């Protein structure tokens, strides 16, 4: 049996996609909104209004490795991350939330949002364990899709950002 190259298969020399080729802000907002309702509560909505992040922020993220490689990064104020963790845990929340509790819960939210984002990307792709701390650097400003929202009036950003630097422009 012979097969014909229709040109649809990707070649190594193809330009790799940037995230804005694959999804838009509305998709991120819809995915995150669904995750919020399931994880945090039915009445918990993300309002797509930008707000100024405080000085003391915390980020949580997961890496996606596949046809598109990058990170899904959530960033908010440390106090908001704690409120979010308490909302996630609901009646199972301990009276005093340790730093590890907040990092674990905030990381799990990134894991769930990242998993849903990954599902909307071309696969197959792998998903890393969540990490918490200072957000990874943006390597290619053209490979970022970012939404700014308010949760309970507090600012939060969700950034889907490529991990790879821009490809060199071929010389003619």
């Amino acid at each position: 049996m012979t097969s014909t190259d229709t040109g649809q298969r990707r070649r190594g020399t193809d330009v790799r996609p940037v995230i804005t080729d694959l999804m838009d802000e509305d998709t991120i907002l819809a995915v995150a909104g669904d995750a919020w309702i399931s994880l945090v509560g039915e009445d918990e909505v993300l309002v797509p209004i930008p707000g100024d992040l405080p000085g003391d922020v915390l980020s949580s993220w997961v890496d996606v490795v596949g046809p598109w490689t990058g990170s899904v990064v959530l960033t908010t104020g440390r106090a908001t991350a704690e409120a979010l963790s308490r909302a996630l845990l609901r009646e199972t929340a301990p009276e005093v939330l340790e730093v590890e509790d907040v990092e674990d819960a905030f990381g799990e939210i990134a894991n769930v949002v990242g998993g849903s984002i990954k599902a909307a990307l071309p696969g197959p792709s792998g998903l890393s364990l969540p990490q918490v701390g200072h957000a990874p650097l943006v390597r290619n400003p053209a490979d970022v899709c970012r939404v700014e929202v308010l949760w309970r009036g507090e600012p939060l950003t969700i950034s889907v950002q490529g991990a790879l630097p821009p490809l060199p422009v071929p010389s003619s």
Partner: protein
Amino acid sequence: MRALVIDDSRAMRRIVTGILTNLGYEVRDAGHGREGLDVLDEGWVPDLATIDWNMPVMDGLQFVSAVRSNPAWRRMTMMMVTSESEHTQIVRALAAGAHEYMIKPFTADAFRDKLALLGLLPQEVAL
């Protein structure tokens, strides 16, 4: 009924444990697959194991395979509870021996519906 909750996230273990405890389950938990096998090795074999996919030390798929290789643990129902939602991943988990697959995020009601589907709601709750 007994359940073993395996997830590297303490928050998710608390949430799933809370749901199962409210349904009348006796629950133990583990932070990764190896810890889960340690619980089984103690002789504490649950009716249900809920298993995350991505975990350090031993992931969920390795845990499922290890359980399936031991006939003494055959009666245990295994449900993957994970944010991995690609079709190929679901097929891999079911092929390895998982009985059911639940994608995060989920609600307590959705979790209960899955248990009902598996015939694993305690009788007093199912009535």
